[in-house]
């Protein structure tokens, strides 16, 4: 190695500076919202709350956790994420495993059948009309079934399964194990990282999706948190949207003017975000691999 030259040092210095700037710009909106959610609403209105809460309070969160509509939306989101992720990963992995077997009759046709959907899709309206026609409107399953099989994930699974060594399967077959037994007893335990990655991606999709419920769901008690949050952010009269809250408690707090529409909105946004933020850094190593398997296939 030769010594770094003067221009190299300048370049490295600039890169450090730029990356610190980028990290700051990326993190600041999140941090600022977090700070506002921990600050008294009335105090926030005075301006100048940036890096640290000035009048610290938990009250925004207390109000959020007392709002029955918000709590219900949370339950819907959690249920949707768990059920949707489990079913999606299960059906997609089974499909991928079947399609990874050379002896599967119709394998080529099935693959083309799947791949075609990546190049042409009916689009939003025909899907909407279909969901309507199936009688799924305003049902929990409208948020689960249409996106249950994701061909892209299937390809990632299949690529992974094909790379697994054959030996274990062969010896299990000699011992008389069927395909399903082999799948659940041997393949699944060997596929921890890819299952974790694709589950994370699917779960993030379900947790974050606000659009499909906004067109499929009308009942208030089936609306997930992101969709509700969108309604709250979009309406100017935020506090009246925080509806179902125990009226007495809210008016008491509004009188004290400790919470405002904005502070409540920020607290709700944080509650909708923090679960994901707590999870993803731990799976980072895996999802980097998952992204790579996916892009190699391209």
């Amino acid at each position, binding site marked *: 190695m030769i010594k770094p030259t003067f221009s190299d040092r300048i370049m490295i210095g600039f890169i450090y500076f730029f990356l610190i700037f980028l990290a700051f710009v*990326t993190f600041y909106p999140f941090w*600022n919202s977090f700070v506002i959610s921990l600050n008294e609403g009335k105090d926030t209105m005075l301006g100048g709350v940036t890096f640290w809460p000035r009048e610290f309070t938990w009250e925004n969160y207390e109000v959020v956790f007392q709002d029955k509509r918000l709590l219900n939306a949370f339950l819907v989101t959690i249920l949707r994420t768990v059920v949707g992720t489990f079913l999606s990963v299960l059906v997609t992995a*089974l499909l991928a495993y079947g399609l990874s077997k050379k002896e599967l009759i119709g394998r080529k046709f099935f693959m083309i059948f799947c791949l075609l959907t990546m190049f042409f899709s009916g689009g939003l309206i025909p899907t909407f*009309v279909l969901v309507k026609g199936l009688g799924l409107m305003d049902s929990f399953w409208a948020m689960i079934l249409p996106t249950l099989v994701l061909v892209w994930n299937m390809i990632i699974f299949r690529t992974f399964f094909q790379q697994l060594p054959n030996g274990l399967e062969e010896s299990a077959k000699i011992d008389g194990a069927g395909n399903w037994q082999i799948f659940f007893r041997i393949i699944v335990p060997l596929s921890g990282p890819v299952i974790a990655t694709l589950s994370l991606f699917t779960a993030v999709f379900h947790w974050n999706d606000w659009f499909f419920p906004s067109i499929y769901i009308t009942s208030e008690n089936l609306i997930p948190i992101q969709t509700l949050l969108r309604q709250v952010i979009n309406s100017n009269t935020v506090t009246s949207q925080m509806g179902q809250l125990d009226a007495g408690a809210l008016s008491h707090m509004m009188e004290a003017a400790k919470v405002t529409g904005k502070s409540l909105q920020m607290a709700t946004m944080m509650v909708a975000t923090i679960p994901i933020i707590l999870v993803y850094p731990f799976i980072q190593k895996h999802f980097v691999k998952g992204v790579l398997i996916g892009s190699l296939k391209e």
Partner: protein
Amino acid sequence: MKAEPQALSGGVKKRKKGKFVQYFKQFDLQLMVIPGLLFILVFNYIPMYGVLMSFQDYNIFEGMMKSEWVGLKHFSMFFNDPRFVEIMRNTIVLSLFKILICFPAPILLALMLNEIKNMAFKRTVQTVTYLPHFLSWVIVAGFAMSMLSTDNGSLNMALEKLNIIDEPINFLSKPEYFWTIIVTTNLWKTIGFNSIVFMAAIAGVSPQLYEAASLDGASRFKQMFLVTIPSIMPIIVIFMILEIGNLLNAGFEDLLLLGDAAILRSVSDVIDTYVYRVGIGSARYSYATAIGLFKAVISLGLLTLANYLARRSGNSLW
């Protein structure tokens, strides 16, 4: 002469029967793919068939069987729509801005991260910049509104403190700022996560190339241009070509969430959002499906073109 075709058909029959028996022999294997294929059939292929309603005056009570066929009426209606030019312009301009800015940015980030030898710092920057990928557009739009708000939004506060402006600017209700805001929020959301692929490509460059370059006296700065960038060029080209197939995907959730105000529609409506407004908002199913089909067909053409280009560069997509 006569016996031959008979024997042939007999052979086919026998083979067919053989397949049939084989199919049931591996029925447990077939059972694994049946649910997945059924879901694809119902939720991907039936909507493809449903596209035919763009050639009808679809009536939800009559269904597709009984609705009247009207040929290309809805397509010509779209081409004569007073908003046609505006929507096509928004779609292409927004898409091009995203390609020009949001596509190269992750590559630059990966190149910069590659120069960092301090692993803890590198890891931290990576983790932080991956974060926005995992946030929903509702949250990102919420952050953007909060940052840009006239009511003590951080950007207005900062600009006022630096004496660049005297009065807070209502960025989100001025059409002239809209495209900048959309490109910036997209950049913010995607730069980190999209750099993963390029980081991996850089990691795959042979260390011998760097050694040879440094023996020849190339500085690190020069090595970046002479070794790293040429080595990852094939991957960059492939991803660039893929972007061509995406030309009409100018965004959807971001535009619906940040550009919903009536005053912004003239700069925020693209094909996808227009399909949504016309189809779901006004329940004009046939018209919206026609617009969607128009887009799908052009996208398919662009994708074919992209694959042709990729094949010529030595990498096929399919």
